C-alpha cells in the first residue's frame, strides 16, 4: 500500500477555469489522479430537463485540454463526474464529444470509460411498486404521475462505478450524474485508504479552492490522504487553508453538521479534528464513514411545466410605487377578463417587484417600500409559448396604461428596459423527482462503456 495518495482537484466545477500557475504547481507535487465533478443541482431544474449544460463548451474544453495533457503525460487517471452539468444522457454525450475532439486535435490515445446515469422510467415504476423508493427532502412521497411527467430522471452514482472503471483499466473516466466527491474518492479508495477520511477529504476537494482564504471554485486544491489523516492545501500561494476555513466549508450547502449523507452511507463528523499545518495547509482526522444497511441512490428528475415570456420594466413615480399592490391586482383582473375563454389553469401571471420583495417573496419580513424606484419583471408561464407571449403582451400593455387613483403621469406607468419589451424565455422546468431509490447493487443502474480513443483516427 502506498503511504499516501495525492488527489488534485483543479477546480470546483468543470468549466469554471483555474490559473495555469496553480495547475502547474499542483503537477509538480505529482498527484496520483486528477478529478473534478462537472455538475450541481444549484442552477435549477432547467438544465436537467432541457438536456443542456449550464457550463460553456469552450470553457470546459479549455479546462479539459490542460487536464488531459497532464494525465496522459504523467500516466495518471483523469476522472470527470456529473458530465455536462446535470449528468443525463445528452449531458454525458456532450462532454464525451469534447474529450474526443481534444483527443483528435492533439492525437491522444487512451482507454476511456463512459458511465451513464440516466434512469429508465420503467425501472423507477417497478421500484415504486416494490416499495423501494423513499421520501427525501421534498417531504412528499413519489407518485407514479411524477415519474410519468418527468422529462428526464438521473441518479447519483456513488464511488463503486468509478472503481469498476479503474479496474477495467480506464485512464479517462467520464461519468453521468455522480455524488460530487465520488470522482475524487475512487483512486484513494482503490488504494485501501479509510473510507471516512477519503469521503470527507473529497467532500472538501469537490469545491476546489472554496475551502481557502480567499475562497474560490476557480482554483486548485490538493488533497493528500494518509493512514489516519488527510491534508488539504491550495497550490496557489495567494490562498491558504485555515482550520476555520476548512471547518466552515464543512457547513457549506449542507443541511446538517454531524452527518453528511451520500450513496451507501454517511460521513460522521462528530469526532473530526482540524489542525493547522504551517501557514497554508490543514490536517484533518477523526472523520468516519457509517455504512447504510441498504444502499440507496438519489434520483433527480425534472418535468416541463410550461413556457415563459417576461417583460422587464421600472417604475419611478412615487404615486405608482405607493399603490403597486392594488395596481398589480387590477392588472391581473384585466388580463383574466381579456382572456376569459382561456382556463386560468393554463397560465400564471407573476409580478416580481424588485425594491419590494423581488428577492425574498413571501419570506420578506420588510413590508414597507423604501425605494424611490421599483424594478418590475412581468412573468407569464403558460401551456404554450404562444399563450405565454399573448398573456405577457396584454399584461405589459395593461400595466403600462393602467389608471389608478391620483395618477399624475398619464403618458405611461412603465419604463421599459428593452425593445422588444417582451422576451421569450422558452421552456420552464421544475424538480419533479428528488427521492431515494434502494438498490441491491451499487453499479446496476450505471452501465459502463469502454471506448478505445485512438488519437486522430477517432
Amino acid at each position, binding site marked *: 500500500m502506498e503511504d499516501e495518495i495525492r488527489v488534485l482537484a483543479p477546480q470546483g466545477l468543470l468549466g469554471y477555469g483555474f490559473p495555469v500557475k496553480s495547475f502547474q504547481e499542483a503537477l509538480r507535487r505529482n498527484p496520483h489522479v486528477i478529478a473534478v465533478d462537472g455538475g450541481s*443541482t*444549484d*442552477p*435549477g*431544474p*432547467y438544465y436537467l430537463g432541457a438536456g443542456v449544460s449550464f457550463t460553456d463548451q469552450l470553457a470546459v474544453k479549455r479546462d479539459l485540454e490542460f487536464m488531459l495533457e497532464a494525465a496522459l503525460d504523467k500516466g495518471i487517471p483523469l476522472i470527470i463526474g456529473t458530465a455536462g452539468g446535470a449528468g443525463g444522457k445528452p449531458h454525458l454525450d456532450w462532454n464525451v464529444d469534447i474529450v474526443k475532439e481534444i483527443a483528435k486535435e492533439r492525437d491522444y490515445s487512451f482507454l476511456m470509460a463512459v458511465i451513464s446515469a440516466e434512469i429508465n422510467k420503467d425501472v423507477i415504476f417497478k421500484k415504486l411498486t416494490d416499495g423501494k423508493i423513499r421520501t427525501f*427532502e*421534498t*417531504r412528499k412521497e413519489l407518485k407514479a404521475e411524477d415519474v410519468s411527467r418527468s422529462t428526464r430522471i438521473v441518479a447519483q452514482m456513488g464511488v463503486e462505478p468509478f472503481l469498476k472503471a479503474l479496474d477495467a483499466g480506464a485512464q479517462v473516466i467520464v461519468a453521468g450524474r455522480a455524488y460530487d466527491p465520488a470522482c475524487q474518492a475512487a483512486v484513494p479508495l482503490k488504494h485501501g485508504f479509510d473510507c471516512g477520511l477519503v469521503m470527507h477529504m473529497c467532500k472538501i476537494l469537490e469545491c476546489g479552492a472554496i475551502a481557502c482564504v480567499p475562497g474560490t471554485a476557480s482554483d486548485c486544491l490538493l488533497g493528500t490522504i494518509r493512514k489516519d489523516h488527510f491534508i488539504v492545501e491550495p497550490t496557489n500561494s495567494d490562498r491558504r487553508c485555515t*482550520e*476555520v476555513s476548512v*471547518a*466552515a466549508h*464543512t*457547513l*457549506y*450547502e*449542507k*443541511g*446538517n*453538521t*454531524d452527518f453528511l449523507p451520500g450513496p451507501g452511507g454517511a460521513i460522521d463528523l462528530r469526532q*473530526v*479534528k*482540524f489542525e493547522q499545518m504551517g501557514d497554508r495547509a490543514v490536517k484533518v482526522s477523526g472523520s468516519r464513514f457509517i455504512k447504510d444497511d441498504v444502499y440507496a441512490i438519489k434520483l433527480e428528475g425534472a418535468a416541463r*411545466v*410550461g413556457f415563459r415570456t417576461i417583460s422587464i420594466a421600472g417604475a419611478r413615480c412615487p404615486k405608482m410605487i405607493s399603490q403597486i399592490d392594488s395596481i398589480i391586482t387590477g392588472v391581473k383582473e384585466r388580463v383574466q377578463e381579456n382572456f376569459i375563454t382561456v382556463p386560468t389553469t393554463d397560465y*400564471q401571471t*407573476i409580478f*416580481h417587484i424588485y425594491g419590494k420583495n*423581488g*428577492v*425574498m*417573496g*413571501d*419570506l420578506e*419580513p420588510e413590508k414597507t417600500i423604501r425605494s424611490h424606484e421599483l424594478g418590475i419583471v412581468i412573468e407569464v*408561464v403558460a401551456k404554450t409559448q404562444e399563450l405565454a407571449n399573448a398573456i405577457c403582451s396584454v399584461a405589459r400593455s395593461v400595466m403600462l396604461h393602467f389608471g389608478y387613483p391620483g395618477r399624475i403621469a398619464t403618458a405611461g406607468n412603465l419604463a421599459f428596459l428593452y425593445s422588444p419589451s417582451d422576451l421569450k424565455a422558452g421552456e*420552464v*422546468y*421544475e*424538480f419533479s423527482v*428528488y427521492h431515494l431509490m434502494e438498490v441491491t447493487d451499487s453499479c446496476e443502474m450505471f452501465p459502463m462503456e469502454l471506448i478505445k480513443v485512438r488519437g486522430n483516427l477517432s
Partner: protein
Amino acid sequence: MSKRYSITELADVIRSKNAGPFELTFDIIFRDFKTYYEVKEKGVINKALIAKLYRITEDEVLTLATFDPAKAIKATIVRPLSSGGIGETDVYGSQQHAPLLSIEIEL
C-alpha cells in the same frame, strides 16, 4: 456589564444557500471562539427565533445546529418553493439571509 450587540458585530459570515433544491441553509460564523461559545451558551439563536424571523412554523426549521470547529451556528429551513420552480425568486438561495442581520444579542 452586559451590552446589546448586533449580530453583524459578532459574526464575520452570515449567509444563505440551497442545501439541495428543497431546503435553504443559513450559516452564522462568529468572529472569534470566545464570542461563539458565549452565544452558543446563551442559546438565543434557536428554532423559535429562526421561525419568527422568517415567519414560518418551528416545524419548518429542520435543523438548528452548532459546529464548534467552525465557530458556527447553522439553521436549515424548508424552501417555500423548490429552486427554479414557477414563481421562485432565488435559484441558488444565496440572498435569503437578510432577516438574520436584525438579530441582537446581549452579552
